[in-house]
């Protein structure tokens, strides 16, 4: 059995596993629903997610420890993840295979030549990791100010180290070493006073933009599966829709189509996870290489080389994705997978100059502070940024969210959507609630998103915590925002039409939307005057309104002038008269010539911010079709005490 066949099986296995995981990510107990399927497993296997969140949060959350398994095996075997597991890599390989199928051997070899541009992925990796590590780095820089003891110990350790290494060298210059040490200490002390722990430099996480696993999860969850839903195959209870997926689709599609030009374009040039594996694989114990140098340089081994790692000459270990194609393509049986270095020599280090490294690191360190100058984490926060229940406070949230779209996929009512610019460029594709799409608001007894989030950007809360029951009775239910009535758009407020759909649909008890009844006199077009009347009937002089126009139950009548201003409900009317309800007859029939006023009973909604949890059911149900007349903003959200609307008592 050829190892290449096994590789294909393995790739197919993980690709199907990935597809299956995406499809089953809907809430339910059927075998094709979430149950307990480890749908995050492939995300967790991606060690870049683990590493980047480790840098930004200084913890490795739960299942992200699986990344360690990948790291350990990469150190032993090389970049097996890219060639054997990565579902995005498998897609690229397949599209690339289709594209070059008809090409000549020579052309194929040419396509698989190493390109110096393949170093770009290391730049990207360094950029993304410095984004995550900025806070950590600044905290280290501030050590002299925050933890003098630790700083002193570190300094002493460094000094001892320098002295020891100087003693081992024969031509050491103690003066020079002392000088270097002093400069080093002075710079550190200076920097420690310069930096402050501001929000602008707080931890951030942007690996989700380009890390292939979150990218492919996001693309499948938000673009491909909703497309499939529109065929006769339905992957969810109702077809899914997501806001602002254009860019996500464009990136996904371009990444796939670029394989037509260069096979595995994304893996070779862009992929930061691949870059990370590339760096780790320089430690690999086993690697692909030639057994001897008796090679005629036919370069057939490069015909199907996925990594463009030039196995013919000095093999670039960091670029080799262990596709194993060269093993069988070599007619001379020179290629093998062995513990010894290739007979033709190896190149271990990524093709990365110090200048490039520094440029990437510095721009990574500067990127987030530059974005955050906008103050979006402070006073300039966007109230439209309603996060799912259990989401951490914005700063902590942004240090964890990898934009994988799992919460958006699992949400049973389809209200979680990828953010556009509500959270700024930094918050692109992070989950935000949009109550205009979906089947309802955020269900107040659902805790699915937090229990699925692979990085705990949305905490795994219990139903008790969500509803503020039992242990959580004191802190009350989790609020994700507050509904506000737009009195200029609300039917009972602005247009004399009865409605109260929002009040009826408010799911919390006691209801967070209350109504107050008012009677508003409406313009009937013509003056209605009593011709004759008894306790229940009024007949008009001339013709009045259309038949049964006022028989909806919402209309009332008052006859003026009268001592009795109580509105009486109209139960029926015809062109020349009306009848009122039995319950409250006229104590004395209106006298001819009296004016008849038609009033409408309106129940005007009010939001009680103490009880409103911001679930958005009201916004979803509001009959005003465009911009809703009741809308939820993130004011009073539990996750940010600074956004409190009311005093707690």
């Amino acid at each position, binding site marked *: 059995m050829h*190892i290449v066949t*096994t590789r294909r099986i393995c790739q197919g296995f993980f690709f199907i596993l990935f597809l299956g995981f995406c499809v089953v990510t809907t809430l339910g107990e059927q075998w094709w629903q979430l149950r307990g*399927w480890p749908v995050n497993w492939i995300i967790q296997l991606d060690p870049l997610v683990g590493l980047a969140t480790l840098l930004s949060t200084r913890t490795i959350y739960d299942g992200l420890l699986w990344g360690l398994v990948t790291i350990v095996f990469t150190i032993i075997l090389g970049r097996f993840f890219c060639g054997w597991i990565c579902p995005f890599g498998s897609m690229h390989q397949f599209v690339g295979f289709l594209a070059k199928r008809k090409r000549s051997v020579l052309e194929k070899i040419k396509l698989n030549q190493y390109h110096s541009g393949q170093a770009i992925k290391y730049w990207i990796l360094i950029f993304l990791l410095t984004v995550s590590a900025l806070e950590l780095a600044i905290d280290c820089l501030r050590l002299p100010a925050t933890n003098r003891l630790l700083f002193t110990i570190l300094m002493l350790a460094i000094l001892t180290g320098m002295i020891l290494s100087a003693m081992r060298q024969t031509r050491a210059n103690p003066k020079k070493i002392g000088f270097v040490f002093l400069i080093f200490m002075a710079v550190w002390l200076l920097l420690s006073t310069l930096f402050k722990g501001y929000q602008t430099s707080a931890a951030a996480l942007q690996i989700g933009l380009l890390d292939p696993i979150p990218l492919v999860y996001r693309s499948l969850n938000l673009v491909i599966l909703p497309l499939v839903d529109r065929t006769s195959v339905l992957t969810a209870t109702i077809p899914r829709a997501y806001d602002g997926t254009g860019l996500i689709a464009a990136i996904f599609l371009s990444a796939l189509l670029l394989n037509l030009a260069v096979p595995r374009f994304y893996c070779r040039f862009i992929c930061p996870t691949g870059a990370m594996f590339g760096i780790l694989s320089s430690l690999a114990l086993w690697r692909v290489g030639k057994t001897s140098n008796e090679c005629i340089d036919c370069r057939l081994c490069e015909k199907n080389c996925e990594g463009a790692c030039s196995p013919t000459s000095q093999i670039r270990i960091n670029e080799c994705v262990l596709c194993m194609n060269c093993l069988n393509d070599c007619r001379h*049986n020179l290629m093998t997978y062995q513990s010894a270095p290739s007979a033709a020599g190896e190149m271990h280090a990524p093709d990365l100059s110090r200048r490039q490294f520094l440029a990437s690191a510095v721009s990574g360190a500067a990127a987030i502070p530059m974005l955050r100058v906008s103050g979006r984490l402070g006073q300039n926060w966007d109230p439209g940024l309603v996060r799912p229940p259990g989401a951490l406070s914005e700063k902590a949230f942004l240090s964890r969210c990898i934009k994988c779209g799992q919460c958006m996929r699992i949400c049973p009512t389809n209200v979680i959507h990828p953010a556009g610019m509500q959270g700024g460029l930094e918050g692109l594709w992070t989950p935000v609630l949009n109550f205009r799409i979906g089947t309802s608001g955020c269900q107040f007894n659902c805790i*699915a998103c937090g229990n699925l989030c692979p990085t705990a950007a949305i905490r795994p809360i219990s139903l008790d915590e969500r509803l503020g029951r039992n242990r959580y009775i004191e802190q009350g239910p989790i609020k994700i925002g507050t509904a506000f009535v737009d009195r200029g758009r609300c039917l009972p407020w602005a247009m004399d039409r009865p409605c109260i759909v929002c009040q*009826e649909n408010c799911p919390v008890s006691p209801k967070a939307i209350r109504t107050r009844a008012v009677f508003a006199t409406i313009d009937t077009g013509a003056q209605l005057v009593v011709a004759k009347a008894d306790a229940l009937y009024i007949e008009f002089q001339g013709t009045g309104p259309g038949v049964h126009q006022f028989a909806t139950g919402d209309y009332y009548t008052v006859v003026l002038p009268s001592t*009795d201003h109580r509105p009486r409900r109209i139960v029926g009317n015809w062109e020349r008269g009306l009848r009122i309800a039995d319950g409250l007859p006229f104590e004395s029939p209106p006298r001819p010539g009296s004016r008849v006023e038609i009033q409408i009973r309106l129940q005007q909604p009010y939001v009680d911010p103490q009880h409103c949890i911001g679930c958005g059911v009201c916004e979803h149900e509001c009959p005003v079709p465009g911009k809703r007349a009741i809308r939820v903003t993130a004011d009073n959200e539990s996750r940010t005490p600074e956004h409190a609307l009311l005093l707690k008592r």
Partner: protein
Amino acid sequence: MLRENKNNSRRQTFVSMVILSILMVIVAGIFMAQSHFNPGVLQKDELLPEPNQDLTSAPWSPHASFVPLPEGIQPFTSTEIFDARNLSDKINGKAELYLSAGFTRLTCQRFKDERATDLWMEAFVYDMGNSQNAFSVFSAQRRKDSEALGLAQHAYRTPNALFMLHGRYYVEIIASKVSGQVPEPVKMMAETFMRNTPAEAAAVNEAELFPAKELVKNSMVLISSDAFGYDGFDKIYTAEYAVDGHSLMAYLSHRRTPVEAKELTSAYTVFLLAYGGKNIAAQLPIKDARCIEILDTYEIVFSHGSYLAGIREAATIDQAQTLAIRLYHRLKEGGHEARSEQ
């Protein structure tokens, strides 16, 4: 070379087998993992707004007041209890009617008739705090096409429902449709409720004080506040009379002290006069009775002891006077013992 090739391919096969068995282990692991449900999934049942009511074997226990249930009637949902804060969750806008009349608690439960699949009924037991409040809500919504029932002093039924006053409880049992199967079980449930629920007899003594002659049956109403558009009038019992094809109304109300009754009488007189009423001199054997013509109808107001009483909307002065005198006599005879029963 050939041997080496063979060697190589054997090695590849071996490694392949190892890898494939690892994949098997992964599959096994995943299948094992999926039986540990994600905590997010376990809430699925609660995601539904209401439990699916098609379940046939719902083990709900019936509300104690209705035990034993008539044959074939089974609980359909659990008992729900509402207080003043959340009453509107159940009956929405109608809550105002109950709240203004001193509502304290609503207990309700749905029942199902096993013999008819689409027939179910819901029992509402409103605890109104006292019998007067209960009578107020009972009388305020007395239905038109109703048929009086003998099982209680104040009970009637409509084609699909039963309404009853029992002590401080106002009870409604409403069926899902009009059917011949409805009246019997509903009535039996009401009787069971009365047996199970101790209640001071509905102390609507005012009922006995209205003269029986020419009284329109079941026309008595208790108006809690703002009776006849006058905001000083609260807890007014009214009853309708039909005399010679004309209808007129008698009313009375027990005040705390005779002085209060007297003062309220004159205050209402002032109110009537202010809105266009005219004083009419009339000889009545009632002390301090006032007769007023307003909007072509006649009103008489008087007080006796701590009772305030009166006649409204009489078409002629004679009819008003006759009824007023009858009412006055009833008050003189029965006023004291009726009150002392309480």
